[in-house]
């Protein structure tokens, strides 16, 4: 997989150019570009890093530095439904760890694990800013808040049944 050359599709090139226009230089667009790359490729591979570096006139090392600094870029393929459970203080006080253990058991994977069918991956995350609606989890970009065990059961079952 590592040898396949990565190229942005024309649509995404246009999106990246729009991002570049926000800044006086090209490099600041790297964070947005990496998001777009992750969307297209599923994760940030070495090929992606090379392509992003060429596009934004950076070195591959600089791009890699950004990828490894921030937690929202993944260097391996994650599941179609990336489940993020917050266990930080405010969630913990309201049962965040119960939710975390429940999801772990239900999916049979641990932190940063991916299910065999690539449908789910799991991540224990730090505070997501949902302290007032704790406990919470996020599936990809969507927050699910004020969770109960029943709700979690329903969320995961409905995701399991989807295609």
């Amino acid at each position, binding site marked *: 997989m590592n040898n396949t050359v990565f190229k942005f599709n024309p649509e995404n090139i246009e999106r990246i150019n729009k991002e570049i226009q*926000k*800044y*006086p*230089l090209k*490099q*600041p*667009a*790297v*964070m*947005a570009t*990496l*998001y777009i790359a992750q969307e297209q490729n599923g994760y940030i591979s070495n090929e992606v890093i090379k392509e992003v570096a060429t596009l*934004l006139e*950076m070195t591959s090392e*600089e791009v890699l*530095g*950004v990828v490894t*600094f*921030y*937690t*929202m*870029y993944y260097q391996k393929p994650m599941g179609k439904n990336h489940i*993020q459970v917050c*266990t*930080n*203080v*405010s969630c*913990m*006080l*309201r049962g965040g760890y119960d939710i975390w253990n429940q999801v772990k058991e239900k999916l049979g994977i641990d932190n940063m694990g991916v299910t065999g069918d690539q449908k789910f991956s799991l991540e224990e*995350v*730090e*505070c*997501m*800013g*949902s*302290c*007032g*609606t*704790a406990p919470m989890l*996020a599936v990809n*970009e*969507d*927050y699910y808040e004020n969770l109960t065990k029943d709700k979690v059961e329903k969320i995961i079952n409905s995701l399991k049944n989807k295609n």
Partner: protein
Amino acid sequence: MEKIVLPDIEDIHILNVYVQNGGFTAAKKAFAQSTDDIIDQVKKSGLRGRGGAAFSAGLKWSFMPKSTDKPKYLCINGDESEPGSFKDRQVFECNPHQLIEGILITAYAIGAKVAYIYIRGEYHKWIKLMQKALDDAYAAGYVGEAMKQKFGTEFFCDIYIHKGAGAYICGEESSLMNSIEGKRGYPRVKPPFPAQNGLWGCPTTINNVETIANVPPIINKGWEWFSKIGEPKHPGTILFGVSGHINKPGVYELPSGTLLTDIIYNYAGGVPGNKKILCVIPGGSSMPPLRGDQLEGVKMDAESLKTVGSAIGTGGIIVMDEDTDLVTVLARISHFYHHESCGQCTPCREGTGWLEKILKRILAGNGSVSDIDLLITVANQIEGNTICALGEAAAWPVRFMVTRFRDYFEARVSKEVNLQVANKVHSMRHTEFPLAEVKN
């Protein structure tokens, strides 16, 4: 009671509704005055930063150089990653146009032509909501070059959203700037301060979302009006986020100086099961925690909290009832700061890890009484020895929780002194003395 940042007006997040309710009149008023006048009014209003440090907003703006051939920048800090804080997302969701108007006025006052709103990456939904509001404002000519015509002024400003990617440290202002520049979010050594040497080496001002959302009402209703709300030394309303063991968690906009007990029992409905309160963190997880018996009469504003040995931080109030295991809580907080330490400074990179390890040892039942002193020693050696305030953020909860709940922690460890650890503590203390002399 008057709400300034999150008014009770239905659909105020829609541009037309905002305009019908006097939206963008403050900007018009501001553009007709000199920039010095605007800065002066905000200074006199007493508006202080809502992001943690509670620094005077007007004073911060006045640090921007008047004559420079470099472009100037404004950054709005919406990274909001401090555990217990969830207020800025309310502004993005419920009143984004007031934030936009505040940005325009601030940019005018400091002479910035470009402003970046830095929003944490996890806030996908709120980034979309804010972008929608921004697109609407652009389309209607309130932002960008079209605003020249709209407001009949020479000044114009572009506003862009920069999406973060899950690093807590990017809420620190110099780290935030590095992040916008497309680099690893390492905090920078100060001085030089951002007003001299900020984004791309240009003069830059960084303000919190809530701070800037306060600006339009100050311009519209006058600084005298604002300065009379709440506590005179920290006037205005504050968005208090209440979470943890509480019946009605959520964000409450209340005048500064509101009693902490009032917020917990009257507004947020008290503790479930009428349990007693063991501990409250008044301003987000990095602020010194207060004991349950310290809460009586505590006012929620920067100066009053200082006198009781805590700080206002982001106004994120975390309530813990009498059945809470404080060792678990502190170990979780320490895990967080260990995880989020950027690794630049050795005291923080290593110290946060040791704090976590020692706390996990106590949690596992293997702690001894010397561990308690060791925690404080390690915390003291982080504090003040790092480039940015994450060092303090990691050290404070440990130092203050262990000191204020010493009995509680002592009850959780073996009375026998672990000699190996004790010797280590002793030798670490010993090294402090010659260093202290060098500093003087």
